[in-house]
């Protein structure tokens, strides 16, 4: 089984925040499309390790993770077996999965 860990603070940004690329640098959209989706496509299991970030905007989390379902890349069920989110503060992890579960695929 092919696995991969993305260290967000090291591989992307210590301060990921905004939602869309148009909103500014290091957005949820940029992380999802440039890093997360390619990693998910080429691995059976991907761990997103958020430890070390200095901030974590809700808009970033919703777009990066909820966006996976909304944009039709994966279903919430597929993600539950393919994706692991790690962070020292559990409420952020819960929030991330809440966004995944709440997201509906765009028509």
């Amino acid at each position, binding site marked *: 089984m092919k696995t991969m860990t993305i260290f967000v603070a090291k591989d992307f940004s210590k*301060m990921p*925040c*905004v*939602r869309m690329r*148009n*909103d*500014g640098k290091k957005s949820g959209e940029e992380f999802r499309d440039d890093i997360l989706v390619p990693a998910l496509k080429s691995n059976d299991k991907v761990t997103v390790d958020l430890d070390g*970030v*200095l*901030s*974590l*905007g*809700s*808009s*970033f989390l*919703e777009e990066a993770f909820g966006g996976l379902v909304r944009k039709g890349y994966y279903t919430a069920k597929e993600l539950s077996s393919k994706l692991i989110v790690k962070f*020292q*503060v*559990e*409420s*952020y992890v*819960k*929030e991330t999965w809440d966004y995944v579960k709440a997201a509906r695929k765009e028509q």
Partner: protein
Amino acid sequence: MEHRDWLELLRWTLPSLVVILGWSVVSRGNDRRETRKEKRQFLDRTLASVENIRKNAIECLTQGICDDSKKLELAIDPELLRMETSLALLKLKDGKNIVDGKNLRKAVSDNGQYRVAGRKKLDMDHRVLTEINSAAAELSASLEKAYRDTYQRDSAFKFW
């Protein structure tokens, strides 16, 4: 052992037992009071952090993009994370759930304005500012309620 010997033994051991028992009760009470005091201090710092985030977020969003608003953004982001870390350590329960800062974080950082390139300054009565204010107020109220429910009820009803 005769009856007299038992009485003699009790004469010596009973006071010692009473002293040990008393010490244990006082010590447990002190420990509980200390824990309550430490939690209260920690809670007060967390509440101050909530208020700080609220004030900074409103100050930031009521300015256009400038050096001052960027400085505020740099202060708000890590403080949101520190606040959430404190809440996770406090583990205060409001009902069944541990109180977290998700609603305040969402109101501050997922409103279509915060750290968004090209945003305009908001009017003081803008919906986004109202949402930040109410999320901060609700979080503070939940924390106070959770603290009261956990510690003040404890001290009123638990003697042992």
